[in-house]
């Protein structure tokens, strides 16, 4: 998937990758009055760096809205692009809360027609489906190791070379330089210009092992497995009274996560009771408070599937919801 090593920068994770772009690309390219467009279902790591940048530059941050099915309203994108002021469109390829798979090809086609670069947060998509940068045609792509069986603290930022060449360094220090004199410095070649300091060697090797493992399984098989599990889980969830699922019901348009609320029980309480039965759910705002506001909920519970999960796990989850119902007298 990554053919040119010059375009690949190792970072701590998606968060650092996006901050790198906001800093090293954003600072020289964004000016007062410019618009950066993101979406309502982004992780905080694809919102806050842009707030920092647009506030500093007196630029504007706008959002592509979402319909009640958890899909983006691309009319909003058209509206912003028509202003001629949009300098970047940034979006997650898969919502970490709703699982919605973004129609990246459509968004990128619109952006290309308007001459606007695109950034994709691939943290959720890369571990769960085949992603091809050539087909996508974006300019920036970020993802993390720890969501795909690798250690924490390692991730990748890919940047199209022609764009990378227009960027300032991110961190200054060792490795990123060619020559340092008292008052000026010249930069190392790509991608080292963007990799200051001692690299995280051990975790890069761990990341490689994880990628080899997933490649051996085959990303299409990973996706197929998750489609089957998600389909089964959605059918079983639908039978539980009082259980509300967020996002689209169309399995082909969503990844292997299901966010839900169970009657009036707070997600933290659901997660804690279910944890006693040996099932790990994530509860809370999932670093997506803008989306929580859009859904008008304080939090959700989220079941996420991966290659090691089975239908039996789904059955156990459904059973444990009965315990929640009992404790809370539903």
């Amino acid at each position, binding site marked *: 998937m990554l053919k040119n090593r010059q375009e690949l920068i190792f970072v701590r994770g998606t968060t650092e990758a996006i901050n790198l772009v906001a800093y090293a690309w954003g600072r020289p390219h964004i000016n007062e009055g410019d618009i950066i467009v993101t979406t309502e279902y982004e992780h905080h790591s694809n919102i806050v760096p842009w707030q920092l940048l647009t506030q500093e530059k007196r630029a504007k941050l706008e959002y592509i809205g979402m319909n009640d099915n958890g899909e983006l309203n691309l009319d909003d994108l058209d509206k912003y692009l028509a202003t001629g002021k949009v300098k970047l469109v940034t979006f997650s390829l898969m919502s970490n809360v709703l699982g919605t798979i973004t129609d990246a090809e459509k968004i990128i086609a619109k952006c290309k027609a308007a001459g606007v670069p695109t950034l994709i947060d691939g943290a959720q998509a890369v571990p769960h489906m085949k992603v091809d940068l050539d087909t996508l045609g974006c300019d920036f792509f970020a993802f993390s190791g720890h969501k795909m069986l690798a250690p924490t603290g390692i991730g990748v930022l890919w940047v199209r070379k022609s764009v990378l060449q227009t960027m300032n360094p991110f961190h200054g220090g060792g490795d990123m330089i060619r020559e340092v004199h008292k008052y000026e410095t010249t930069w190392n070649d790509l991608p080292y210009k963007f990799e200051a300091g001692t690299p995280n060697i051990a975790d890069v090797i761990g990341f490689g092992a994880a990628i080899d493992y997933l490649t051996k399984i085959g990303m299409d098989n990973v996706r197929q497995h998750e489609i089957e599990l998600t389909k089964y889980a959605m059918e079983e969830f639908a039978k539980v009274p009082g259980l509300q699922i967020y996002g689209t019901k169309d399995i082909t348009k969503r990844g292997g996560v299901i966010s839900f609320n169970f009657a*009036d*029980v*707070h*997600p*933290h*309480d659901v997660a*804690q*009771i279910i*944890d*006693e039965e040996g099932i790990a759910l994530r*509860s*809370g*705002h999932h670093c997506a*408070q803008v989306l*929580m506001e859009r859904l008008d909920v*304080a*939090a959700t519970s989220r079941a996420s599937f991966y290659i090691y999960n089975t239908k039996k796990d789904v059955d156990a989850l459904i059973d444990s919801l009965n*315990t929640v119902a009992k*404790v*809370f*007298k539903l």
Partner: protein
Amino acid sequence: MSSGADIYHEMIVDYSRNPINYGEIENHDVTFHDSNPLCGDSIDIDMKIDDQKVTDIKFHGKGCAICMACTSVLTEITKGKSLDDVRKIEKNDILSELGLEHLQAVRIKCALLSLKVLKSALYTYLGSNIENTEGIDTLKAEAENLY
């Protein structure tokens, strides 16, 4: 040890459904808001203070059953107390009331958000009503050592 599902006894579940002192006080003397950044629990406390006593207290917000139950209990403990006594309220006063003395670290913030908001409200009130400047330093030191 209260761990897992056994913390969800009758009282907690009841308080979460029917919180005590839930609402707002329109003509409050002090109000304070805070939230837990990790989980998003969010609490506002309003107090009416007359003659150095909390004559009315109400809270509103969103939170899990532990958070709602603890806030209910805390408002009950606080109502009618002198400001000096409110200053002395400790975390165990709430936790013991609900049998949560050994609540796991992961949920302790849910339980004590309300205490943080109450103390912040109290010090906000005291700070804005204090007469001598010497007292301000004592208050500041006390407020800084709360957590």
